[in-house]
């Protein structure tokens, strides 16, 4: 496929990575389409950062290939690196330079000259860094450093943006600001690959999600299909008496019991709420309050990565 432009933004084929005896990636295959906002999830050590680092050319794969728009990330690295912007997970910076110098140098590395000045100004404005443009990077707060990393990744106008845990360690307000910015980039046509520990983030932003566990791809689907795979609904009951034993037929459904609060996990298609309430009534158990909640990505994630009770 190398040598011509493909309609697939990112293509990952049979990717393996060994670190000594550790098999960090065990044959990963998937594709990301242009304009997608793609989530890459997995617990710590699942292989997300290794995969992204191979895509970025920071780590060499043991076996397998990654193509960006049909170009191989090792054999045609000049082309692929121009197509990709990477926001690293760690807050790394060069303490010798100002914000503007950092962006000027980063643009220069990609062969961009002074014509990139207005775009750098726009990035500084959009990411609320204009007032700090001539300050040394060391003087920036953590949130500002994170935004500078995003600006650095975008300075050469890449088509594919990879954000490795972009909101890690960022306060709630800044997280919302970054989410808004990611959505803007997506609307502007960028292909975005996002890794995150915050499942709410993936649920809010991503169109399609891949879940890695122990170096293997355990799920790859649209967000809705992933949620639909698990027909569970949670029924939360608040009982009047904390010591009341529940009827035997409800015990297999109990997911958690905390004082008067009981959470039952029910199959949407098989277990009716009326049946549960009838069973409680027949056992003379009084219910003070109840509500239902559909399972979220967190429950799906826990089930797929073996951390849940399924």
């Amino acid at each position, binding site marked *: 496929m190398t040598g011509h432009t493909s309609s697939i933004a990112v293509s990952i084929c049979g990717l393996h990575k060994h670190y000594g005896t550790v098999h960090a990636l065990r044959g990963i295959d998937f594709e990301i389409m242009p304009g997608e906002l793609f989530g890459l999830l997995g617990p710590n050590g699942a292989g997300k950062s290794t995969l992204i680092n191979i895509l970025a050319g920071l*780590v*060499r794969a043991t076996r397998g290939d990654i193509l960006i728009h049909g170009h191989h990330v090792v054999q045609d690295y000049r082309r692929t690196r121009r197509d990709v912007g990477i926001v*690293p997970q760690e807050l790394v910076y060069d303490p010798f330079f100002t914000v503007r110098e950092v962006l000027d140098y980063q643009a220069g*590395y990609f062969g961009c000259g002074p014509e990139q000045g207005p775009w750098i100004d726009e990035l500084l404005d959009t990411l609320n860094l204009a007032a700090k443009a001539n300050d040394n990077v060391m003087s920036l707060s953590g949130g500002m450093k994170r935004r500078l990393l995003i600006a650095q990744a975008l300075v050469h106008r890449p088509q594919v943006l990879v954000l490795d845990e972009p909101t890690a360690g960022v306060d709630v307000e800044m997280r919302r600001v970054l989410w808004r910015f990611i959505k803007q980039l997506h609307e502007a046509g960028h292909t975005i690959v996002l890794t995150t520990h915050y499942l709410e983030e993936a649920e809010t932003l991503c169109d399609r999600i891949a879940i890695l566990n122990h170096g293997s791809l355990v799920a790859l689907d649209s967000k809705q299909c992933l949620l639909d795979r698990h027909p569970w609904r949670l029924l939360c009951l608040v009982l009047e008496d904390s010591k009341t034993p529940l009827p035997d037929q409800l015990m297999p459904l109990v997911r958690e019991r905390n004082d008067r609060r009981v959470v039952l996990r029910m199959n949407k298609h098989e277990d009716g709420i009326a049946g549960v309430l009838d069973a409680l009534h027949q056992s003379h158990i009084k219910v003070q309050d109840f509500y239902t909640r559909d399972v979220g990505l967190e429950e799906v994630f826990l089930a797929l990565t073996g951390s849940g009770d399924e």
Partner: protein
Amino acid sequence: MNNPRGMWTLFRKEMSRFMKVSVQTVLTPVVTSLLYLMVFLQVLKEHVEVYPGVVYSVFLLPGLIMMSMIQNAFANSSSSLIQSKMMGNLVFVLLAPLSSLEIYFAFVAAAILRGLLVGIGVYIAAIWFVPLHITNIGVVLVFALLGTASLGALGLLAGIWSRQFEQLAAFQNFVVLPLSFLSGVFYSIHSLPDPWAAVSRFNPFFYMIDGFRYGFLGASDVSPTLSIGVMSAFFVLLSVFCIWLLHTGYKLRD
């Protein structure tokens, strides 16, 4: 090289990095070399002429200039690389569409520049005390370039190899420093007993100093042509090894 602007930018960044701390990177080595000069001139002012008609101070100064240049060229590329590795900001260079050759040229060119600035600084400061004249500016320039480029490449190798500051310090203290002090900066190898005179000929730093000194004095321990040959071979060897390591991603792209 398909990304000359990228290479030029990396060179400018490396240059700017050391110029922002020029007191530490340029002025301090100049002052240190002057202190060496003062101390040695006081202690060895009665030292016999090394070459006919050449007093010891005039013999010593070219060696001191070259030693300052090569040590600072080494320090520039090695410290920049290890700092970037430790701070994690090397990632910005590794993510860019720069070839191993372009990265090599940018780092080595910045090392050459710092070495030359220090050398010029030492020369300008020292000629107030020592009447050192240049006999052959071409030879001086060739050895200055070969010496600083070689040590710039060696610094890059050391920076690639080191995972921590301690490893780099070990490389500097156990390789670069002994080789430069035992290279004939302070003496002519003709004054050494065997086997040390013969052993000195296996030290590439000796040829840097000796050839550079020839450019000033018109006299040297070995033929300047031989020194240029040895230095060129040393430089090419280091450069090929360095570019190969960058190409493989050794300790940079795991």
